[in-house]
């Protein structure tokens, strides 16, 4: 069953220099209870998608077109008042670890409690304290530390609290935006395990956003690769890793350093992505692409289906279908 269905979503930011199209015509579906990963580098629009799904876009952002179907409602059309019933209750967010996401002047348990009370005002005190205990238990924080202030927690513990906060009302969809960035690898590993464990235990839908393709792969079975505001390739983890098709995915994988792929390093000759202020009208990756042709510089790319679950966004179907590059 489809939990979330995003169709032709475009989001722009009004800036002094003009409209910056951060997300351009994006569509994807998420099945109930499954994780979906978004990977891409800075400025690719991944965070904007996350914020749009929470209805928390900054003031200068506008949804230009498209719809976000969630449980029979189009989230794009919700009023602020309706959004408040969704946020926290049905869709919740795990924020970036580097963010200052906990209010420094309130106790930790209070900050989780208020999330529950807002959506379940009738809950008795006993139930509430049971729920809090269960949540702290779930994310492995000693219940005795519940009444601390955020500054008394370590980075890893703060991140666990943020996870607990997202889980407070048993949401159907959780959005995790770079939940482990800026954490040490050992802590990152623990947090990723935590997220996997929790996701499997309570079977919630999960949108996992990161710049690190391996981190995304460790949590999600399906992956969307983003570049300059567009999804350029999507498929299962296995498809994307074993037979990447889009030249950008190849660059991303080729430049990823891990302990078991040293021989596969391909150094791309890439510059920063194009300026999203202007309407490009052709392939956005063209300037950085090794297999770019004349068509790529003139035409909008289209989707090339490779398997039922795997497709890439490119102007040159032959190149995408045939194996190119090193493969």
């Amino acid at each position, binding site marked *: 069953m489809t939990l979330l269905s995003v169709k032709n979503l475009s989001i722009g930011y009004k800036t002094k220099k003009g409209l910056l199209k951060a997300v351009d015509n994006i569509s994807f579906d998420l099945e109930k209870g499954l994780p979906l990963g978004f990977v891409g*580098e*800075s400025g690719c629009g991944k965070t904007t998608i996350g914020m749009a799904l929470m209805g928390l876009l900054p003031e200068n952002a506008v949804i230009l077109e498209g719809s976000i179907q969630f449980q029979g409602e189009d989230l794009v059309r919700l009023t602020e008042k309706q959004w408040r019933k969704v946020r926290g209750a049905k869709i919740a967010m795990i924020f970036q670890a580097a963010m200052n996401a906990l209010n420094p002047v309130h106790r930790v348990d209070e900050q989780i409690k208020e999330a529950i009370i807002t959506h379940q005002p009738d809950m008795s005190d006993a139930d509430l304290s049971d729920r809090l205990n269960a949540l702290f238990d779930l994310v492995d924080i000693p219940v005795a530390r519940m009444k601390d202030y955020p500054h008394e927690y370590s980075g890893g513990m703060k991140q666990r609290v943020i996870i607990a906060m997202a889980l407070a009302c048993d949401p159907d969809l959780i959005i995790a935006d770079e939940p482990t960035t800026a954490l*040490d*690898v*050992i802590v*990152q*590993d623990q947090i990723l395990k935590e997220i996997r464990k929790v996701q499997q235990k309570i079977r919630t839908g999960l949108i996992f956003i990161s*710049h*690190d*393709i*391996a*981190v995304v*792969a*460790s949590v999600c079975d399906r992956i969307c690769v983003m570049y300059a505001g567009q999804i350029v390739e999507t498929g299962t*983890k*296995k498809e994307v*890793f*074993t037979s*990447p098709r889009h030249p950008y995915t190849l*660059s*991303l*994988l*080729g*430049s*990823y*350093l*891990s*302990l*078991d*792929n*040293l021989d*596969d*390093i391909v*150094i*791309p*000759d*890439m*510059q*920063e992505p194009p300026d999203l202020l202007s309407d490009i009208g052709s392939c956005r990756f063209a300037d950085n692409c090794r297999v770019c042709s004349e068509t790529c510089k003139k035409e909008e790319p289209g989707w090339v289906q490779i398997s039922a679950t795997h497709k890439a966004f490119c102007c040159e179907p032959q190149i995408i279908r045939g194996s190119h590059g090193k*493969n």
Partner: protein
Amino acid sequence: MAKTDPKKNFLVEIKGVTKTYFPRKQFFARHQNKVLALNGIDLCIETGEIFGLVGQSGSGKTTTGRLLVRLEHPTAGHILFNKVPISGLKGPELKKFRSRAQMIFQDPYQSLNPHLSIAETVMEPLVVQKIGTPETRSEKVIHTLETVGLSPGKAFYNRYPHQLSGGQRQRVAIARAVVVEPEFIVADEPTSMLDATIAIQLFKLLREIKETFGMTFLFITHNLAAARYLCDRIAVIHEGHIVEINTAEKIIRNPEHPYTKKLIKVQPGFKYGR
């Protein structure tokens, strides 16, 4: 741990170095708050190698780098550069040392003065070291910019940091470090703020520079995979102690210390390797 092998030619030797920080003192504090950043470390860096120092935040890796370029002084122990202790250097000798050991910093958005043009930034070491005349300096700057991949150098000469991307800024920072042709460069996480596709190109650049100028590098990183990719030898540092030193290959294949093993285990990667 690091046995001094008389046959080897060490450019940098760290002997029993301890560094303690005293954060803001409170008058009536019962205990003096002190942070032991480094606890008696020994380390030798051979001439011409890229030496990797791998550790997590707070492990003391950045402190080590800062001690080596004398941004800070050790609380105890000695640091020898070309067999000469650097803590005693003063006046002209210190200035000379400054031209021989340079540093590349982590954050490309903070490492360039927004008020200075690229030329002024890269030229500064030449000016303060009184190397060359104004004309030869500007030639040297243009040449160095091209060496670090900012070509044509003239096109970047009069630009300002805010007109450059993160990767380009970091290249300028590298140019500033190599323009005096130092023997030794400390690179403190030079790519951790950059995207992977940009970072890998900088690694390539560092390698090329090492080969062209024959410099010795200390590469500080939290990423074991990056260290393995770039370095000849690696030291793993944990809570102010060096827990293991070995060649890059051996550290990854046969880690001895439990902490190294743990680090290797949690390193993200894809098991579907192509």
